[in-house]
């Protein structure tokens, strides 16, 4: 038996990658540049695909491989390219201007992580031994934290495009929770979610473009003004 067939090793790798996903999420809160933000999101999604692959390998659940491949295709390649094109097309200022300044945002993100851990703790009931079924149970805490920080980023940002990005990272949290708790939803659900995401990104992209055309800005706080 090779060392990588040991479920303990798999558990360790999943935990490690989940921690990195969390670090990238916090990096996204702290990041000022729009393009870098998109790339951090791509890296985060890549790690997510790796986690999905690892879970698929240790649980012998081949349909998760498809979910992982879709993640790779959609979130690592397609959506980032789409968004970078959009950024280039509408020529906005590269800097993200959050409502709350960066150090405080990062501290809030840290606090939300703690909330995530506390919430996840109540879901966790240690069972007998370390059977492969307990694989990656502690990623739930990370998933909930991703979710909360994603919400916070959506509130904290002015520009429509960065809010879309926050929504996508929030969805990453959902995906992580789904694969770590249930070892993958039925494939048809996953497929639905992915197409949903793809369509949402495209529609939001067009919407962002229109907002920019009409208001000369992507600042959503200007949407209060009515125009005939």
């Amino acid at each position: 038996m090779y060392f990588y067939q040991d479920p303990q090793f798999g558990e360790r790798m999943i935990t490690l990658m989940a921690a990195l996903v969390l670090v990238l999420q916090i990096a996204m809160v702290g990041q000022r540049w729009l393009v870098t933000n998109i790339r951090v999101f791509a890296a985060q999604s890549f790690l997510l695909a790796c986690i999905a692959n690892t879970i698929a390998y240790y649980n012998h659940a081949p349909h998760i491989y498809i979910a992982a491949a879709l993640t790779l295709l959609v979130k690592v390649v397609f959506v980032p390219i789409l968004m970078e094109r959009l950024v280039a097309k509408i020529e906005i200022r590269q800097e993200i201007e959050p409502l709350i300044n960066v150090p405080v945002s990062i501290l809030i993100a840290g606090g939300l992580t703690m909330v995530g851990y506390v919430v996840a703790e109540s879901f966790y009931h240690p069972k007998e031994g370390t059977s492969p079924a307990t694989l990656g149970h502690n990623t739930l805490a990370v998933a909930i934290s991703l979710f909360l920080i994603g919400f916070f980023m959506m509130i904290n940002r002015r520009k429509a495009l960065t809010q879309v990005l926050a929504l996508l990272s929030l969805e990453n949290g959902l995906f992580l929770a789904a694969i770590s708790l249930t070892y993958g939803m039925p494939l048809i659900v996953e497929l639905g979610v992915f197409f949903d995401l793809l369509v949402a990104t495209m529609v939001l992209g067009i919407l962002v473009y229109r907002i920019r055309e009409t208001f000369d800005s992507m600042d959503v706080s200007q949407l209060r003004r009515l125009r005939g």
Partner: protein
Amino acid sequence: MSKMLGASVFQLVLLLCISPLISGIIKTLKARLQTRRGPGIFQPYRDLNKLLRKQMVIPETASWIFAAAPIMVFATSVLVGLLVPMITADAPLSLFGGVLAVIYLLGLGRFFLALGALDAGSSFGGLGSSREMTISALAEPAMMLAIFTVALSASSTNLSEVVRGAIGQSWRFLAPSQMLAFAALFIVLIAETGRIPVDNPATHLELTMIHEAMILEYSGPYLALIEWGAAVKQLILMTLLINIFYPFGLSLQWNAASLAIGCGSYLLKLVILAVLIVLVETTNAKMRLFRVPELLSVAFVLGALALISTFLF
């Protein structure tokens, strides 16, 4: 007793000899990455040698603090060096203090350096001191959290105990808490040694300098003491980073073979960390001073997450 004395002398010699070399290696590697030839790796020794033989210029307004500061900086650095395990798991003076002693002795040295800079009476000194104190006040909690993460799993703040605990668990460095703590401590290392995203060690531009602004009025042997002290401090922080998180090859006994292995692996790890620092320094631009708190708040949050995740993972 004599063993402790021998170990102390051995580590002292090692500390004083290696520290300029590491600075030299970092400088040379950096120059090479920027396609310059750069000075040789032994340049810091020549600099120190030259400075020690030069005459001193002391400002008229300076009091005894100006003279005490370099000695305090040097003495605290060397003392801290004896508290940290370098090539053996037992630090020579580990009975006298642990992590807290390390952090606050370094703090004492920094305090005297800032006082000395103020005492010289030039406006740059005051500017440098205030910046240094701001940064260190932000770096300190991050450093505490990161080190406590490791101390927690060894349930001791004594560094020798911490390192011994770390040797026992082979896969421990892959645990998320360790990685997060390592990242936090690495950012602190960059900030404390005045490396590029935070401070530029090679500049004398008044808008950006921090460490250089404080030592602007020093010359001759005093400058040599400060530079040497700073090099020792850098070596200590690097040693902390590599020995706490990656204690491979540390010798547990006092015999020639294990000491040789300890020495070899220690130097190898130091060089790897130096390369990492050089890469960070060359690929980043210096931050504006007002952006530095953002970087350090990242370090703080990483440290806090590390501490939480030791309880939960």
